[in-house]
């Protein structure tokens, strides 16, 4: 188990370095090759040469590429100082770049936005796991019945309807129509009930989509597992049916669900762009959306890196959980 863990951690670390280099390359090298002057795109309407030069200097765009990559790397661990035109900006470690558009270091933006997205993702995940898996198990146990068919039709709807649509619909009904909730984000530290009120619709909307997917995969997996010999063995032992399903069958069913969960959570943490924008939640997804609109490259790079990290981390957790669940994995 320990060896497995070390191997996974090492692989993750290597991936991390590769990701940073690739992301950096995509955002700083490709535009350069494509002939786009990054410095110019940082300056406003009247592209004053002095302004362009100032940004170029601050960003270190005139230094060789490897130096830029190195500076970026170094910044993550020891912080970084941008200076030019008599102005000095210190970006404390971990420095994931500095947004010259909004004049703030990227890392605080990320840490400011991250809890919102994390709250959204985790809350929705709890909902969709509970409802999706329950619906899937029930459907599997009642396969072929009206309940099963009904649940699967709802699941199909959930999978096919775009978040934007369900989000707008739920807002129109519950926030603007019935006025049950004030569709305004309230930070958790300000008010728990306010936060809950603001998050409930996004959670449900997001969970609806995912619960549908999870119900479908749970149903299929459960049906497959129920046909396994060891389930028959469990019954032959005289186990109660709820133990057979709840313990023996569920443990096996959890494996693919967990894999999906890891991937989905990782991707969601990178920003549930549509959900966040529909419900105006100030999370990473909105940050990156605004950054794209404002061409705020450093923020885009930062969020991309964080997303990759989140996916990487989620995968690591899944790998470890995998080993916890399935002893056979530990050998490989």
């Amino acid at each position, binding site marked *: 188990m320990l060896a497995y863990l070390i191997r996974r951690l090492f692989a993750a670390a290597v991936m991390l370095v590769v990701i940073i280099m690739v992301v950096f390359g995509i955002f700083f090298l490709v535009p350069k090759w494509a002939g*786009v*002057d990054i410095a*110019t*795109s*940082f*300056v*406003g*309407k*009247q*592209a*004053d040469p*002095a*302004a*362009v*030069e*100032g*940004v170029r*200097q601050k960003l270190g765009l005139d230094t060789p590429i490897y130096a830029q990559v190195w500076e970026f790397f170094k910044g993550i661990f020891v912080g970084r100082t941008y200076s*030019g*035109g*008599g*102005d000095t*900006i210190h970006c404390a470690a971990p420095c994931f770049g500095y947004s*010259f*558009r*909004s*004049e*703030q270091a990227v890392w605080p*933006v990320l840490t*400011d936005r991250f809890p919102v997205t994390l709250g959204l993702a985790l809350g929705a995940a709890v909902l969709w796991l509970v409802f999706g898996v329950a619906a899937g198990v029930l459907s599997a146990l009642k396969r072929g019945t009206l309940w099963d068919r009904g649940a699967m039709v709802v699941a199909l709807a959930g999978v096919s309807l775009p978040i934007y649509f369900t989000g*707008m619909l739920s*807002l*129109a009904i519950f*926030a*603007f129509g019935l006025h049950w909730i*004030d*569709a*305004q984000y309230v930070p958790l530290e300000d008010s728990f009930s306010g936060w809950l009120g603001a998050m409930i619709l996004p959670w449900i909307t997001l969970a609806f989509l995912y619960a549908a997917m999870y119900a479908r995969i749970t149903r299929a997996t459960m049906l497959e597992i129920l046909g396994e010999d060891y389930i028959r063995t469990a019954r032959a032992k005289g186990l109660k049916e709820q133990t057979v399903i709840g313990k023996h069958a569920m443990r096996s069913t959890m494996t693919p669900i967990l894999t999906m969960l890891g991937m989905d959570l990782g991707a969601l943490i990178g920003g549930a762009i549509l959900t*966040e*924008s*529909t419900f*105006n939640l*100030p999370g990473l997804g*909105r*940050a990156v*959306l*605004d950054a794209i*609109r*404002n*061409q705020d490259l450093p923020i885009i790079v930062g969020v991309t890196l964080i997303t990759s990290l989140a996916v990487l981390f989620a995968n690591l957790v899944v790998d470890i959980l995998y080993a916890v669940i399935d002893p056979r994995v530990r050998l490989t």
Partner: protein
Amino acid sequence: MTTQRTSGRRKQAFAAAAAVAALLTTAACGGGGSDDSGKGSSTGAAGFDAANNKVAQASLAKKGGTLKFGGAQDADSWDTTRGYYGFMWNFARYYSRQLVTGKTEPGKAGATLTPDLATGLAKVTDDGKTYTYTLRDGATWEDGKPVTSKDVKYGIERVWAQDVLSGGPVYLKDVLDPKGTYKGPYKDTSKDKLGLKAIDTPDDKTIVFHLPQANSDFEEMLALVSASPVRQDQDTKSKYGLHPFSSGPYKFASYSPGKELTLVRNDKWSQASDPIRKAYPDKITVTFFSDANQLDQRLLNGDLDLDINQTGMSPQGRTTALKEHKGNLDNPVSGYIRYAVFPQSVKPFDNVECRKAVIYGADHVSLQTARGGPVAGGDIGTNMLPPSVPGAEGQKYDPYEISGKNKAGNAELAKAALKACGQPNGFKTTIAVRNNKPVEVATAQSLQASLKKIGIDAQIDQYDGSQTTGIIGSPENVKKKGYGIIIMGWGPDFPTVQGFGLPLWDSKYILDSGNSNYALIKDKTIDGLFDSYVTTLDDAGKEKISSEINHKVMEGAYYLPFVFEKFINWRSDNLANVYTTDNYSGQYDFVNLGLKNPKK
């Protein structure tokens, strides 16, 4: 109009009666019904266009409350030196004061200057090369210290530090130091960092500007927020925009870029020192959205009072609003002209007749429809001077009869022009359009369709809209790509022909990159007119030259104007003392907005 007003008054009476009845029965009525009354009631909307070029519900504004802005776009920067968005300039008056500023009056009057920090408008001497101001007593910073002439000078000097404080307008720098000898306060070697020779501050109350050459719009430039005072010990350089130090009635309480901005009262500001600002609300909040539809939804729902961006509602919200809440809407002219421009470097647009052929061949009604129709798009544009600019004649000046008999295109005249151009069978060209502006793509398609009828085969090239400066701002690239027609739009930085047309039409402004003179106009007459404009000091003379420049540009057929842009702007039921101002291209004048019911 008269009958309308009478009926309005009657409605007002009904509304009042209804309000009393409502109070008596304590029945609360949610949501504003559309009330078409000109003046409006204390509960409902003021009526359609009630705040367009006139003040709506001025008497209903009460002190206190929270004024709630929403926006789909944060400012480029809240640093007075760096902001360039129109709404930022408008909003900046909450926390910054200038020597002079636009009057807080509706419409055209708003674009005329009035003293703010200064006791009066400039004493102009030395043939328009020296401007002298005396500062008012009692104007203070948010820590209570007085605003001095040195603070004003330092604030203006910051414009020179473009390498640190990029983004804002640089007119003052170009006018006061055209040779660029001063390097900005951060590289200033003098002890007090006030090394700019062109500005003298003989004492704390007096400031004198020495212009190397006269510029009749100089005072307009001083009215820009980039001429706001900044106190040296509070200058956080590039980070200043995160918390500008206030000289106005409000100060920054919290700001999270792209999320929210909250201003609270600056209790050190004294009403007596400020003839401009009424400072009705206690608090001003701005909430930012990523999704314009969301913003419109909140406006319609009454959660927010107005859109800080002031660029009009999105099509979806607009449709609902026009149907259900017309009384909350205004339909002002934005000051923008939407147009197609013909770069002379791309053949056959070097020939004026070919340019005319396109102007005649285009179906102007269909272009207007593509822009959104007469209400959301604007009136058909007939020339290149926005209605808000002095000297503009609006649709009265229509050399190509675009809004007249050639409205739907005139194939005959177009064919004749093509013949005169030596292209009787038409030609091939490319229309360049930003891919992130669906409306512009629609106009390009409309133009393409009408040009086909006269034998001009135009291909549409949708380029990356975020790279506008690099793509169409490079004459070399335009020529290489063969962009014979470029779809664009332009609005004035300040409402004069200089503030609008100088970068577009003066040959000095043809740049290798970041070019705005897309047509590459090199007309000695036009250059000369601009030169004489800046030295003409009387308003009548300035207006006359403005018109002349406009005529010259139109005669050259460099542009095909689409519309004098209009937009649909939302104001909540609770908003009082609302009016649009030409000072900010038809936006509501933010600084004196008040609330009818501060508790709401």
